[in-house]
């Protein structure tokens, strides 16, 4: 087989993967080398969380707006948007609801979609409010213990037990 770019025999057989479809290239050593060392622009890290966050937050947000956004906190787990931005990890399932407006463009940027189409759990979280209540109550109980308010902590513990037993 001849090289696709000259008359020398093709010794390199390169399969290019573009758009998921393989494309065959047959080249001599010289042309293959040139082809393989062609300067190609590195893909921007669009899929990485940091890259996506930077891209999302760069869109027309003033410092003031960003500061306000950063201070928003989840009422259930207490995490602020700033903490999420810094650590890249959310604090509880409710964050997806309370930061919905901020997260949607980010999720769209990472996945290109906003609607789950896969498997669903057999046991659905029947009473979502109850479950987020549990997260909130456990957090409040911890705060009560830290603040040495044992009476309140004990009330909260009873409340947690009640919810756990009824679910």
């Amino acid at each position, binding site marked *: 087989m001849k090289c696709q770019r000259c008359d020398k025999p093709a010794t390199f057989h390169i399969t290019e993967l573009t758009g998921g479809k393989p494309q065959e290239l047959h080249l001599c050593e010289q042309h293959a080398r040139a082809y393989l060392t062609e300067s190609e622009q590195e*893909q921007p890290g669009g899929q990485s969380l940091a890259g996506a966050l930077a891209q999302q937050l760069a869109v027309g947000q003033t410092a003031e707006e960003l500061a306000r956004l950063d201070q928003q906190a989840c009422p259930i*787990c207490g995490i602020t948007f700033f903490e999420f931005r810094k650590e890249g990890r*959310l604090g509880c399932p409710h964050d997806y609801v309370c930061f919905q407006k901020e997260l949607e463009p980010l999720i769209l940027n990472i996945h290109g*979609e906003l609607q789950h189409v896969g498997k669903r759990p057999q046991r659905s979280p029947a009473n979502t409010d109850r479950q987020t209540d549990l997260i909130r109550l456990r957090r409040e109980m911890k705060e009560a213990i830290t603040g040495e308010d044992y009476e309140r902590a004990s009330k909260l513990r009873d409340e947690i037990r009640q919810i756990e037993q009824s679910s």
Partner: protein
Amino acid sequence: MNVDFTSLARTSGEWLRGAGPEADIVMSSRIRLARNLADFPFISRANPGDRTEIERVLRERIVAIGDLGPLSFVDVNKLVALDRQFLVERQLISREHSEGDGPRGVVIAENEQISLMINEEDHLRIQVIQSGLNLQNAWETINRVDDLVEKQITYAFNEHLGYLTACPTNVGTGMRVSVMLHLPALVITRQIDKLFRSLQKISLAVRGLYGEGSQAMGDFYQISNQITLGRSEADLVKQVGDVIPTIIDYERKAREFLVRESHENLHDRVSRAYGILRTAQTISSEETMHLLSSVRMGVNLGLIHDLEIPTVNKLFIYTQPAHLQKITGGELDTADRNIERARYLRRLLNKEERGGDGVNQN
């Protein structure tokens, strides 16, 4: 039931078997699912009490599942660093899980195909790993494990976003499909970077042997999906699975090219690598990986005739620091490890010798 590390150190996990389709190039197929309990904060906001409770709930309910065969629970928090590293080398826990803190553990099924990490980045990470190119089988297995766990536990799930995870990069299916490929000829012919760029364009990630941030050691590359939302699990399996035959073909063509156009150099490379591994008196982990890669390719190309792929696969894992220390019985510093590693390699590789110098002269 507790894991006996001494006996684990003598066995080799199912993914090292060197069996399964395309095992000359595909080392293993792995799928993991990220799951969280609906009524606890994610790990980053969970206090030690929450984590203890999450660990207890998940451990008790998983171990109670009868259909998964014999299960062992390892309390990762109580392990010494060497044992944690051993589990990482064995791919039973992630590096993050090993280096984390607080209550955390892993449930391991008998043949090491299934492991369930508790309190990693998410409350639960289910993993199935199999030898060779076996994605469909891995998916069927992990789906069944997930169904069994789901009967016991209410997962954090949202109608729109699917399974909710600590990091938005995993939301939706929570699924990462990975195939570990041995691509020495693409490295030698310097085509590997080009392959990476092509894969990035179709939203596939390429990483080293031990996942995110790890260097590609011994020419092993892990290819996995980046997107987890908006596609079904079957689609994700297909997305990764569809591209693998093309990469295998690409590697085979590069090997054929080397055999045809550069046979002497290739044979020399393989023979020297085998020679050094069988005679060295001290050798680093890095050099071992590098040389074993050439030897593995040499075995697959018929240039080495007295060595089997499962032995080579095993050597990749057993010459790493934690495994080496486990089999030679105790903690060793780097210099002593290098001596023990060389001794171990000489013993295993020369024992397999069946006459001649082991290198095919044809």
